[in-house]
Each structure stands twice: as structure tokens, then as C-alpha cells.
């Protein structure tokens, strides 16, 4: 037996000392980098596309490639805006349109959310309300215009009704789904805390349905503008849609495009309001917010 202990075979087998060549052909090389070389501020990146489009528009009109009465130059739109603003036509039209949209929206909101509560909270309510609502939801509301004119005449009522109709359904569907998605466990917890019916609705069911309701709100606001455009262009007596119809008769393309821009801006600001609401009202939520 040798005096020195020999290493156990297989366990402490010595590594070959510094092999001359190490095979690395099947390994991936992580290339050292310096991150992004040019950092473009967010605002500039986002506005690149629109600015480019505006430039194209300006160039096409200024070079004469597109005739003025087909598509007026950006500067013509600006002077149309000034003209309508100083004459007071624009302010009056905006006031009328916004009033219609708000009243219609308020009615549609109350009906949609109210019916969603009835059918979301009560089994009997669901049986009575849900099936008719789902059937009416498939009806394209734009097709209602002739009927509304016969039933309700040509003043404000049919326009407000159309907006309310368009707003009601997306709110109903999403709020109802939101209510039915409220965690049963939380309802039970509320029962063990002996919540009364009011507290159950306002402290558990509605907050739980809020994410769904806000999705519905977003769709509803989109539909509200669409319905307004329909109601006002088909049967116009003042408002932005009337401005457009009138401009068509006198061949003022600049005013038509200006009004379309204003519609777009109104829709955009409605969307921003909902985003803001989501930020404020849903700050408790644990969701994936992107990387």
C-alpha cells in the first residue's frame, strides 16, 4: 500500500492542465454593445409619422399636383377656421353638437349601466333583460334613422335618441360582463362582513365591474360621435354635420375637411378622458402594463 493516498477514481480525476486548443464552435458569442446609439425623445418619435404626412399634404398642394378645389392646402384650412370662428358659425355648431352628444350620452349611459345592473345582479333580471338586449345589440343603429324621423320628427329628439341608442349597448354588454366577472370569493367575504345590499352594489359589485364598464365607456364614446355624425348629416338643422352639408352645397371642401378634423379631435379628447379615468379609477389594479 502506498504511503500517499491516491485520489478516488472518477471523483477527483484531475482536469487536463491548460489544453492548447479549446473547442468553442458550438457556443454563442454575446457581442458587447453600447446600448442604443441614438436616443430619440418619445414625443419626436411618435410625431414623426403625422409630421411626414402633413409635409406630403403641403407639398402636394403647394406644387400644384393636387388642384385646390379637390384638396385645399393646410393654409386654406387655417383661414377657413378663422373665417368660421369670427362669424360665430363654428362656436354655434360646436355648442349644438356637444349638447346633443352629452344629452344622448347621459341617457344612453343611464340606460346601459342601469339595465346591466338589473340583469347582472338579479337572475330574474337577466331572464327578462339580457335576451332582448343581445338581440337589439345586433341591430345596426344607423339603420334606425328613417324610423326615428317618422316616429320622432326632425328636431332634436331623434338625434339625441340615436346617440343614446348607440351608447347604450356597448355599455350594457361590457358592464354586464364586468359584473358577472366579479370574484365570487369577494362577494362571500362581503357577506361575512355583513354588507347590506347597497354596500354590496357600491363597494363590491360596481368597483369589480369598473374595468369592464370603462372598456364599454370607450366604445360608447366612439359610437356616440359616429351616431352624431349620422344624425347631423342625414337630417341637419345646425351643428357640425349641418356645417358639412351646407359646405357641400356651396362646394367648400376646406370647411368639410376642417369639420372632419374637429370631429376627429373631439373623438380623440373623449378617448383621452377615458384613459385618464382608467388611470385614476383603476390604480388599484394589478395588471401587466407592458415592458
Amino acid at each position, binding site marked *: 500500500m502506498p504511503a500517499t493516498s491516491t485520489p478516488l477514481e472518477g471523483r477527483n480525476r484531475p482536469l487536463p492542465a491548460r489544453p492548447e486548443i479549446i473547442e468553442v464552435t458550438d457556443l454563442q458569442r454575446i457581442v458587447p454593445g453600447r446600448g442604443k446609439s441614438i436616443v430619440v425623445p418619445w414625443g419626436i418619435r411618435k410625431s414623426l409619422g403625422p409630421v411626414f404626412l402633413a409635409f406630403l399634404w403641403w407639398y402636394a398642394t403647394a406644387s400644384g399636383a393636387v388642384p385646390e378645389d379637390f384638396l385645399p392646402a393646410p393654409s386654406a384650412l387655417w383661414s377657413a377656421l378663422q373665417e368660421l370662428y369670427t362669424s360665430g358659425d363654428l362656436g354655434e355648431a360646436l355648442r349644438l353638437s356637444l349638447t346633443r352628444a352629452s344629452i344622448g350620452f347621459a341617457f344612453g349611459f343611464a340606460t346601459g349601466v342601469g339595465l346591466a345592473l338589473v340583469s347582472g345582479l338579479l337572475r330574474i333580471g337577466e331572464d327578462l333583460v339580457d335576451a332582448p338586449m343581445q338581440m337589439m345589440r345586433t341591430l345596426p343603429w344607423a339603420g334606425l334613422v328613417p324610423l326615428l324621423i317618422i316616429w320622432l320628427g326632425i328636431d332634436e329628439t331623434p338625434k339625441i335618441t340615436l346617440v343614446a341608442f348607440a351608447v347604450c349597448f356597448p355599455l350594457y354588454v361590457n358592464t354586464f360582463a364586468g359584473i358577472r366577472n366579479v370574484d365570487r*370569493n*369577494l362577494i*362571500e*367575504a*362581503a*357577506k*361575512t*362582513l*355583513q*354588507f347590506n345590499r347597497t354596500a354590496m352594489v357600491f*363597494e*363590491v359589485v360596481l*368597483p*369589480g365591474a*369598473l374595468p369592464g364598464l370603462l372598456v364599454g365607456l370607450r366604445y360608447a364614446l366612439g359610437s356616440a360621435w359616429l351616431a352624431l355624425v349620422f344624425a347631423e348629416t342625414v337630417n341637419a338643422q345646425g351643428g357640425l354635420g349641418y356645417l358639412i352639408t351646407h359646405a357641400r352645397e356651396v362646394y367648400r371642401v376646406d370647411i368639410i375637411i376642417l369639420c372632419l378634423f374637429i370631429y376627429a379631435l373631439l373623438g380623440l379628447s373623449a378617448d383621452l378622458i377615458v384613459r385618464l379615468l382608467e388611470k385614476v379609477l383603476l*390604480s*388599484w*389594479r*394589478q395588471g401587466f402594463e407592458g415592458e
Partner: protein
Amino acid sequence: MGDTRSSVAVKVSGLTRRFGDRTVIDNLDLEIRRGEFVALLGASGCGKSTLLRILADLDHDIDGEVLVSPHRGVAFQSPRLFPWKKVWRNVVAGTANRRDRARAQSALDEVGLSHRANAWPKDLSGGEAQRASLARALARSPDLLLLDEPFGALDALTRLKAQALVADLWQRHRQAVLLVTHDVDEALLLADRILVMDAGQVAHTMGVRRQRPRFAGDPAFDQSRLQLLKWLGVADGATSRSQLQ
């Protein structure tokens, strides 16, 4: 003037609960005295959680007589906090005044969570959320605390701390407690009386008279554990020292 309150917090006689033709609770009798800490042990599906849900007034589809203190606090295996309420608002959600910040603060103090009063539930750790849930039950100043495996979802270290907290809270307030658990050690550490449920009935009862605070590991403890494990149908206690599934 005598104390007009009844001497028991729970009195159940001849309770039966069926799901279809399966009888989960079968002619069960149970009495919990005021201030008594009772642990209810049993394998999964033995009806122990069903019994707790009946006592919590969440399940009414029953036969038999159930009398239970109206001043109850309930804590479940998951915290079930309302995610849209700040922690302190959750804590006083079950009290008469839902804006009683001071009351919330003192309940949170008791569970060592006063520094988290203004947090959203999503920002709490698992142990913190479970403590907040306990604080919510305690804020109602209950005579009866119904705990449905409240430490089941916690990691081992957090669970030990939470058990010590419950022992401490009970020593201070002495409300009656029904703790549903499948953890034999937990029952032995906390309860005055341990009920082992089997086939919808209370099959075995063990009184625990040892001094508090208790520690796992002394010979009497081990002996009791072996007995409980035998009752639960686990022949060799050593194979599952702390938890039965």
C-alpha cells in the same frame, strides 16, 4: 345584574348537509364555549370547510339546528381583500363606521401592519395580506372567530409567525375560535380542544391542557401528535411530520 349572554358561541345539533346524494356532514353535534379555542382537523373532503361555511352563514342548504354568535369574524385561506380599497378601508369594511381610521389603525397595530395602512392590497406580500385579512375580522370585535386554513397558503416561516400572532391575539381577546386546518402541529400549538372530523362527523376529540406559549418538540407534544395522526389514518407519523394532504 347578571351576564345575559349565552355561555356558548356555537351550538350545533343534528346538522346534516348533502350535496346531491353525497352526505358531507352527517348528523353532527358541536358546541364551542365562549373563549374556547377549538381546532378542527381532518383530511381533504371530510366536510370541515363545509362546516365552517355553514357557521359563517354562507351555506344555508342544511338540516338540523345551528345556533351561532352574530358577532363573527371570518378569515379564509386566501386573504380576499377588496383590491379597490386601501388596506385600512378593507379593515373597517365590516364595521359600522367605514371611515373610522383610528379603529383601522388599532386593528392593524395588533397584527403589526400599521405601516401598511395606506397601501393597496396588490402591494402586500402574502403574509401581510393574510394579516390584513385577520385585522379585518378582528376589527369587528367578534365573539367568534372562524378561521378556514388561514395559514395554508403561507410559506413555512411566515406560517410560524402567523401562528404565534394568532396565539397572542387569542390570549389578549379570548374570543371563541374555530380553526379549520389540516396541520396537526398547528392544532396542537393553538387549540384547547382538537376535533378530528371523519365521514361527516366529529370522530375524535382531544383536550389540550398544556401551558402557553407552547413549543413543538416536547415528549407530550410528540405523543399527542402520534395519536392525532393515527386518528387521521396516517399510520407512520414520522413520514409526514407537519402536514397532511
